[in-house]
């Protein structure tokens, strides 16, 4: 058991920060510690959470995906456009949008793998492309959907205070956890991030896995865009600006190492909740302002990166 403890200490560190933060907020602000509020943490951050789940795959493989914010915006616009102007039913539009997102991600993954280009630049191009496309779709950059009956009925789904976006997020976490832990694809993601040339020498399918990783990241972002439409009732081409930053931060705070190979989607869930609490606190506390959340996230990021660095040095010194 101690071995398991030692192995999972970054995750435990994140969990500890989360518990302390939650307890402190609950003590300081009456009403914070209710199931209603707890569910709200998930609702309000479902889009970020979905993007972070996808980002976990990318970072575990040693890559980075800058395009997720733009893909969220594009997905929300395309969905709204298909339903409002195209008259598609939501049951046809959602799979179509998801397929579009996955295809976009697969293209980026293929370009990264085949031409051995830095993920940073390729996903940067993807970001420009997706954001540009989203903005070009309609002249007024925003499509109001709240009057649509289908959206209205979906946005009113509630189970135990958790609404549909929150449930999609939690389902994605569960699916990603299972995929990373119990499929060959998932183990290959870790292998690529840990040592790609070794993975290739062991005969693992690195090409299809890498394409799959970026497809999943874009797929998750697309799902984030869809739940955003459900939650806000609108497609918004300027949505999710800089959201890729928060997604990366959530993954790193969740204990996943930016160099790849180590981490888990459970950590990402905890990381997202930490960000959610930090973001929620200013609405309870009059004198605290929203900019403190950015500084706090930056500081947390610093602490976790330094801890990772220290543990690397410690590991290197041991052998």
């Amino acid at each position, binding site marked *: 058991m101690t071995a398991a403890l030692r192995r999972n200490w970054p995750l435990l560190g994140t969990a500890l920060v989360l518990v302390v933060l939650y307890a402190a907020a609950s003590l300081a602000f009456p009403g914070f510690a209710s199931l209603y509020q707890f569910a709200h943490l998930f609702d309000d951050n479902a889009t970020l959470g979905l993007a972070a789940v996808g980002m976990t795959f990318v970072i575990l493989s040693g890559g*980075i995906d*800058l395009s997720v914010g733009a893909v969220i915006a594009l997905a929300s616009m395309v969905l709204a456009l298909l339903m409002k102007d195209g008259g598609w039913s939501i049951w046809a539009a959602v799979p179509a949008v998801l397929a579009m997102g996955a295809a976009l991600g697969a293209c980026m993954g293929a*370009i990264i793998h*085949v*031409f*051995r*280009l*830095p993920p*940073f*630049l*390729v996903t*940067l*191009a*993807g*970001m*420009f*492309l997706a*954001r*540009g*496309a989203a*903005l*070009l779709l309609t*002249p007024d950059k925003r499509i109001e959907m709240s009057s649509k009956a289908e959206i209205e009925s979906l946005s009113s789904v509630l189970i135990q205070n958790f609404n549909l976006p929150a449930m999609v997020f939690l389902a994605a976490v569960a699916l990603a956890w299972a995929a990373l832990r119990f499929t060959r694809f998932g183990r290959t993601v870790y292998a690529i991030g840990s040592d790609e040339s070794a993975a290739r020498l062991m005969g693992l399918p690195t090409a299809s896995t890498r394409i799959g990783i970026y497809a999943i990241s874009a797929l998750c972002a697309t799902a984030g865009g869809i739940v955003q439409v459900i939650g806000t009732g609108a497609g918004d081409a300027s949505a999710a*600006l*800089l959201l890729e*930053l*928060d997604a*990366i*931060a959530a993954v*790193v705070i969740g204990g996943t190492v*930016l*160099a790849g190979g180590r981490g888990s989607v459970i950590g990402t869930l905890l990381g997202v909740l930490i960000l959610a609490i930090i973001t929620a606190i200013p609405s309870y506390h009059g004198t605290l*302002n*929203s*900019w*403190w*959340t*950015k*500084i*706090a*996230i*930056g*500081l947390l*990021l*610093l602490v976790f*990166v*330094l801890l990772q*660095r220290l543990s690397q040095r410690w590991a290197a010194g041991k052998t």
Partner: protein
Amino acid sequence: MSSTLRQLIWPLAALALLLGFNAAFHPSFFHFQIHDGRLSGSIIDVLNQGAPVLLLALGMTLVIGTGGIDLSVGAIMAVAGAVAAAALREHAPVALAIAAALGAGAAAGVWNGSLVTLAGIPPIIATLILMVAGRGVAQLITHGETLLIKSDSAFNVIGRGVILGVPVPILIFLAAALGLSILVRLTALGLFIEAIGGNEQASRYAGVRVGPIRLAVYLLMGVLAAAAGLIDAADIAAADANNSGLYLELDAILAVVIGGTALTGGRFTLLGSIIGAIIIQTLSTTILSFGRNMPVELNLVIKAAVVLVVCLLQSSELRRLLTRTWRRSQ
């Protein structure tokens, strides 16, 4: 000299293509006028509006030359603008406000450089921290508001002024470009940067001070980003912590890559990065000048294409694949 030319041939060709396009479809692009003692015209607009990206690209060239990257420059711009505006609101003299802003930029640079050199954190992660937190700091200084600067303040000359007919942002950029070129080529700084980016271990063996040089490069980057932030704030006569320099770090990195400096570091070219930044700015100005026929957002899509093409041109893997198919077809 010939190797420098070869390095610049692609960016120059791209710029020529872009200008040729303008010459064919939009000849007024090349017109100059003197209007109220102020030089104007599309080319002047490109340089004037592009000054912040040009400044960032200069510093980013050095950072990338050492094999690093700085994602925080957009956030540093916001901080610098906020510092200047806050100082002016407290009735500080203009010179002091400017000095404070540049000092904040330098401090940010030292912070980044220390994380990279002392803590040994990879640059992309080290500067990500300030990219996340920097805007929070800027908002902290402005208390979350857009701090207006009095429109008659001498400070605004930085963004809107004209000296001898030339807009001040262009002069600031020219001074920085000239100063930096002199700094890297008339001292040994350029050699050291290229040596570190080209082979860090060999540089250590040869007795180059790797740590201090790295730190200095991030510091320079911070100061240049602060200067860009000052121009931005003075131009709109306000410090906008949310939007000042938003995504400009990516444009700056793009300019460097388009200019022919590899992301892996080593040989760098300031001139190439300047051309790269001008290409990026010309793109948006071109699209703007077509008015209603072309939406501004097309800019982003074209930029995406440019990034991909430039990357593929530099990809040795593509070259290998192409030569292989070519040989097979022979």
